[in-house]
């Protein structure tokens, strides 16, 4: 690569942020290189559509090789990436870091729930004195949400719910009608004072921008060969390539941003995953979009005379205030669902409904012992059988013979799960840093994680348990999941923070456009820039921030200011 003309822009990572930046900047006429740490990946030919569990090893069950099951789209990853370890500090709570190694990154297997942050979410400290405010408001990002949603396609319906913004008319795709179990659950939610909303999912319920509508089959986490959900590899990268301005380099594991004597970035250094050869891509502007913690790691490993502790780290803020979501699930069995006639409940994979956080007033009045909320994603229905069917019978129950079959048939479709997705407040004890003792297979220092949930997260989790139990019992059901455990940090794979944005170089690593305070032609455009981690799943906001930052880069470059 070193022999090539310098690119205008090099982007590290090809997922939500990298794909979005490549799309916008290639369309704006810049010559862009995208470096992806994993292999090339083509959803058109590699997606197992209309699977048969019978054909998969172990009926598709999860294994240490494929942590979310055989057909899950994750390539060369999961909680373990061969040759690329990470460590957890001895005094840390348990932590898990999910990484794939493939073009498009986690957009290939993400959950497709696409929620906008609301006005409160950008100013949490102003509201309750905890955490930090963003250097922007909802109105600053709203046009970018509009733009991203028009491009990728997101379902929804105007709801008028507090801190749950409705896009302008014409932006949302029609939501799918609720499944039978969702109608039942809706009545229980409403009885408990909640407002039920149509799901906001990045799945096409009608054709959009040349992409086909959903076929209402095949889990989105397997990817989609009909391009009916949002993946960087189906929606962003092909369009960017169509401009002729994009060069994609796969298996390029970037470990460092190179800086010249004047303090400007000249490009990035990488290792070829297969050969171990070192390489460099020169560019006039560098964008980090490697995934929040990976971007922070690159900054920390970019040490030079000018930046002995890594780029942007003069205040020690790189790697700090990392966050995840309090994602907690209760499963239950609701016998009345047995009596509903069998129908096809596959739908658009995600729930067709969800419950936005509904107790803002109670929190304002100080009636709850936690200040931030959660939304609920309910799942259930007569979905594709998995090996978990065997769990319908308690181990103490000795049933076999014809009675066994009767029980299975009777119970099928009567199970539901309620997942809370709750806000985590950033804290001083949750961060990552370079591990002085452990290096990856190419000799680059790895991250060591420190995780600690705060008291507010624990209280919120207890509230989730209480409420989910109430929902299930109000429908005459019983909780079937085992004793509740506080979720493991990182397990929601809502990886954000580590190079947060802010108002000045004393309180942050980058500005509201992702521009690094310390190096003007270096931008961070992924979830690393997040200042808070509201209950809303992060992908849509990563896309909006990346798009807004890309526009800023284009503007500065055209003014000659990079």
């Amino acid at each position, binding site marked *: 690569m070193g022999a090539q003309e310098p690119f205008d822009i090099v982007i590290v990572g090809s997922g939500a942020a990298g794909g979005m930046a490549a799309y916008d900047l290639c369309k704006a006429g810049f010559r862009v290189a995208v470096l992806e740490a994993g292999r090339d990946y083509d959803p058109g030919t590699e997606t197992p559509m209309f699977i048969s569990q019978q054909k998969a090893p172990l009926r598709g069950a999860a294994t240490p090789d494929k942590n979310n099951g055989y057909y899950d789209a994750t390539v060369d990853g999961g909680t373990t990436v061969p040759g690329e370890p990470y460590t957890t500090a001895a005094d840390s709570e348990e932590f898990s870091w999910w990484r794939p190694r493939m073009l498009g990154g986690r957009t290939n297997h993400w959950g497709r729930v696409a929620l906008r942050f609301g006005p409160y979410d950008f100013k949490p400290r102003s509201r309750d004195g905890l955490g930090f405010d963003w250097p922007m408001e909802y109105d600053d990002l709203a046009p970018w949400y509009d733009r991203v949603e028009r491009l990728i396609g997101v379902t929804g319906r105007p709801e008028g719910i507090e801190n749950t913004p409705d896009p302008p008319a014409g932006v949302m795709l029609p939501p799918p009608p*609720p499944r039978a179990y969702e109608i039942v659950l809706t009545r229980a939610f409403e009885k408990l004072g909640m407002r039920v909303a149509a799901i906001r999912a990045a799945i096409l319920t009608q054709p959009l921008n040349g992409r086909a509508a959903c076929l*209402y089959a095949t889990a989105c986490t*397997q990817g989609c060969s009909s391009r009916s959900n949002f993946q960087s590899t189906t929606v962003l990268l092909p369009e960017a390539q169509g401009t002729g301005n994009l060069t994609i380099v796969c298996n390029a594991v970037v470990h460092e941003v190179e800086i010249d004597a004047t303090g400007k970035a000249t490009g990035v250094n990488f290792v070829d995953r297969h050969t171990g050869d070192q390489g460099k891509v020169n560019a006039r502007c560098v964008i980090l979009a490697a995934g929040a913690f990976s971007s922070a790691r690159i900054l920390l490993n970019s040490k030079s005379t000018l930046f002995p502790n890594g780029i942007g780290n003069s205040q020690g803020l790189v790697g700090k205030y990392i966050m995840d979501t309090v994602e907690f699930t209760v499963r239950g069995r609701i016998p*009345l669902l047995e009596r509903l006639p069998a129908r096809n409940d596959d*739908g658009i994979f995600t729930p067709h409904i969800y419950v936005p956080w509904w107790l803002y007033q109670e929190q304002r009045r100080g009636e709850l012992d936690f200040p931030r909320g959660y939304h609920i994603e309910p799942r259930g229905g007569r979905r594709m059988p998995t*090996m978990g069917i065997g769990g319908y019978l308690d181990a103490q129950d000795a049933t076999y*013979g014809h009675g066994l079959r009767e029980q299975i048939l009777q119970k099928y*479709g009567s199970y539901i*799960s309620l997942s809370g997705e709750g806000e985590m407040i950033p804290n001083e004890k949750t961060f990552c840093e370079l591990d002085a003792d452990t290096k990856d297979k190419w000799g680059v220092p790895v991250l060591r994680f420190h995780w600690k949930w705060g008291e507010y997260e624990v209280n919120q989790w207890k509230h989730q348990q209480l409420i989910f139990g109430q929902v299930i019992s109000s429908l005459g059901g019983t909780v079937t999941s085992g004793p509740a455990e506080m979720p493991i940090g990182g397990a929601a794979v809502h990886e954000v923070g580590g190079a947060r944005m802010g108002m000045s170089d004393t309180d942050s690593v980058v500005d509201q456009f992702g521009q690094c305070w310390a190096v003007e032609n270096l931008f961070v455009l992924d979830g690393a820039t997040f200042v808070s981690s509201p209950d809303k799943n992060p992908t849509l906001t990563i896309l909006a921030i990346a798009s807004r930052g890309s526009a800023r880069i284009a503007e500065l470059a055209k003014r000659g200011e990079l």
Partner: protein
Amino acid sequence: MDRLPEEANATGQRIPFKALKTRDAITTAGYGTDPNVITPKTPWDPLLSRHQLKMVAALSDIVLPGTSEFAAPSKIGICNFFNEWLSAPYKTQQSDKDLIFQGLDLLDRESRRLYWVGFLWLGRKRKARVLDAVIAMSGDARKFFARFRYLLVGGYFTSDMGFAAIGYKGNVPLQSFAPVSADVQQIIDDELRQLGL
């Protein structure tokens, strides 16, 4: 690898992933981290003996008999499923192998104790009596029954025929997703009314 995602996912859906506690190098004897998902292959060799396969078939058909409409487990390849599962190099499956192999031996021993011949030589009623005797035991014997049934039920209803047997109607392309019909809505309303909702 003691924190695999819970298999007993009672809704048949993706559930939030629970992290693996250890991060040791993963086994190279499995299908790897990038298997071909379009034309899946099982790379490990099947380990079960002829006798063990016959035992699996016989026990499966007692635990989950076929019906006039849907075939018994032994007729839809349940032996291949068990052979693949119990031969897999992963920790969960390795532990299942030990438990199931011991359990099959125990069935034979119990059969000889009660009826002087091995399990395979018994008629259906006596097989059930031997199974009842094993279920009545505690410890690993009881664990064997529960785990065997778990694997059998999973293997059976995740088969192509099992999808039909359980009444799964999805995995087919649709042009649109229809709302529930008026009669289903009526059933829902009636049920909820009884609950005061």
